[in-house]
């Protein structure tokens, strides 16, 4: 008995998925647990495993194409089984009118543009859910709104044509009165982009970049940020690191400055529950586990793998786990569970010769530590000017979750642990 394979929910924030590539072609059989496709969510590329033994009968959504959650992406069944007559046609088929059951060529072979053009209703674009459903507008009204940077949704319900159709006159009036930004729907908060100039290269965002853009805009718009900065003397921490790495030389392991910082933060978070809670719907949620996210820049994107229960792990283990996570992050091989659930994030730009910066909180987390470069500076110690290695850090805090003092205390403890680094080994 054939059945439809649907787009699985692979993350909480996922609204659609993109087929990275199919690993099973039409006609190919597979066993339970086999990876049959790679699916890109808004955060990562995930393996899609078969729930049971079967055969790929028809691929509905081809490589590189997207589908909404729950939308059929393939039809599977027993070997040699015919695809039922009423089965949906492949997304790349022409209007769904192909021969029943005929094995289609792999969608990968079809030109991408064509496949996109003829995608079925189930295939959605990022904008589709917020399109206001059946917004009626005349073709010229749509074109003028587009050219004028007017979001037609702002005129929803205000069209003066038949059945509320938005007509040219409505758009002219709206444009004459200045462009109003789209209402509430947060995902629609993007203002009209400047029209691309001649020779500009306009590119579609990847699902990941779209998610980053959306979530960061949401965060800045809805989370009241405040910032606490400090300077940390890293001289002794760097000495400790050198000592550790020398001792670990034979094992091939290495501890980075970032590992020490993560360790210090994890310890501090345990000590300051006030700075380790989230504001959710009028409540404070105190986190019982310390899960530290590490922001990792990719060639085109940003991902935050999570070190779970970081407070329970020593520097050496944190270093090993981080190495593994970062490598797999760059290869796009992280599992969903490895990129969600952080309660705190470290964003380290020390390697970029950065004097200072502040980071945007990744909700529902309430704090994020921005780490800048460590530089050698002349510092007064006990009345004498001495050279010390100074690192500047900035903690961004959600003011709904913690007060300035909460943030300052957390930062103070991080500083204390890094300046007296034997505490990191305690």
């Amino acid at each position, binding site marked *: 008995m054939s059945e439809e394979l649907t787009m699985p929910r692979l993350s909480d924030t996922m609204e659609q998925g993109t087929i990275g590539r199919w690993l099973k072609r039409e006609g190919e059989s597979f066993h339970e647990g086999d990876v049959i496709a790679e699916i890109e969510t808004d955060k990562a590329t995930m393996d899609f495993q078969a729930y049971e033994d079967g055969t790929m009968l028809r691929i509905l959504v081809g490589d590189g194409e997207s589908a909404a959650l729950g939308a059929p992406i393939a039809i599977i069944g027993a070997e040699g089984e015919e695809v039922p007559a009423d089965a949906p046609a492949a997304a790349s088929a022409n209007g769904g009118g192909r021969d029943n059951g005929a094995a289609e060529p792999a969608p990968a072979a079809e030109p991408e543009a064509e496949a996109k053009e003829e995608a079925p209703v189930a295939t959605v674009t990022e904008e589709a859910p917020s399109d206001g459903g059946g917004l009626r507008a005349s073709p010229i009204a749509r074109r003028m709104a587009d050219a004028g940077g007017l979001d037609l949704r702002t005129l929803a319900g205000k069209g003066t044509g038949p059945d509320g159709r938005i007509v*040219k006159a409505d758009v002219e009036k709206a444009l004459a009165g200045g462009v109003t930004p789209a209402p509430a729907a947060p995902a629609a908060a993007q203002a009209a982009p400047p029209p691309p100039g001649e020779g500009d290269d306009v590119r579609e965002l990847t699902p990941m970049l779209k998610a980053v853009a959306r979530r960061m805009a949401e965060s800045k718009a809805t989370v009241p940020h405040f910032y606490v900065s400090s300077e940390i003397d890293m001289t002794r921490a760097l000495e400790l690191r050198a000592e550790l790495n020398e001792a670990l030389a034979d094992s091939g392991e290495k501890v980075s400055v970032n590992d020490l910082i993560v360790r210090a933060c994890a310890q501090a978070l345990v000590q300051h529950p006030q700075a380790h809670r989230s504001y959710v719907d009028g409540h404070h949620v105190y986190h019982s586990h310390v899960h530290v996210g590490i922001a990792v820049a990719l060639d085109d994107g940003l991902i935050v793998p999570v070190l779970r229960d970081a407070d329970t792990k020593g520097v050496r283990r944190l270093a090993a786990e981080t190495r593994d996570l970062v490598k797999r992050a760059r290869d796009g091989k992280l599992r969903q569970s490895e990129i969600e659930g952080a309660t705190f994030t470290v964003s380290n730009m020390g390697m970029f010769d950065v004097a200072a910066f502040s980071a945007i909180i990744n909700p529902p987390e309430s704090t994020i530590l921005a780490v800048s470069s460590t530089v050698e500076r002349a510092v007064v110690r006990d009345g004498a000017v001495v050279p010390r290695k100074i690192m500047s850090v900035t903690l961004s805090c959600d003011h709904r979750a913690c007060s300035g003092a909460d943030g300052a205390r957390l930062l103070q403890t991080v500083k204390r642990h890094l300046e007296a680094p034997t505490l990191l080994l305690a």
Partner: protein
Amino acid sequence: MADVTYREALRLALDEELGRDQDVFLMGEEIGRFEGSYKVTAGLWQKYGATRVRETPISEEGFVGAGIGAAMMGLRPVIEIMTINFILVAMDQVINHAAKIRYMFGGKVGVPLVIRAPGGAGAQLTAQHSQSLEAWFAGCPGLKVVSPATPADAYGMLKTAIRDDDPVLFCENLVLYNLTGALPENGDGLVPLGRAAIAREGTDLTLVAHSYTVQRALRVADRLSQDGISVEVVDLRSLRPLDVDTVAESVRKTNRVLVAEEGWSTYGVGAELAARLQRVCFDDLDAPVERVGQAEVPMPYAKPLELAALPLESKIEAAARSLLAECGL
């Protein structure tokens, strides 16, 4: 030159072409001594004689067929069908022969034939004598179908049609014969086939028409202008080839289009234009293409019913206003 009537413009064109080219001859019922039912051929029989202006019996299939044969042999016949309604008995000659001969002879033989056919309604001539059938012919490849709306176009297009190497159905409207207008002062006055004209410029609505309906459209535009509505009137002049480019250019300016015609709307000129416009200027439309045509009935005899069935100015105006109201104007 003083203004002439549409009828006189046609006569002048025939006279000049008969005088210019010995291969041109006229053929039709009562066109000689009686000077034609509508007096378009007045004086030509006396001037050119019975060989060049040939009287025929009531035998449309016969004389249209004879005209096709003569044209294949190199002459340039201009056939007058008393009214377009009578061409139906010669339909096989027109559609199956005149239109297809060049194709079926591999391009080696043409049919330089003009068929003049008055049509239209409004004179209580009842169902069989009150038809605008031009859209039927305009659907047939191999034919050119034209329908000038002014004396200047009637003159210039008839001359062009006579000089054309392929068959042309030249549709006139009875109501137009007494319309007066100026002929061009200079030049040969030839008007190309297949090109529409902007009869009046405007910015709010494109009103497309052909033949006598152009005159109605112009009056509707006048009336709407009193309310500050600016209507552009496009005179199609030719139905095949159909000059969609000119109409589309106008629609790109006005964003709204109404097609008015005296024939039935179903499968009519407006239907064809609506289909083509949505393809070439979909993104310029502010409302669906609107059409006004004759009521979908055989034309009634009774005067009030005939008026009710015709696409009179009041109906065109109402359709225009309703279309504009949809667009907030």
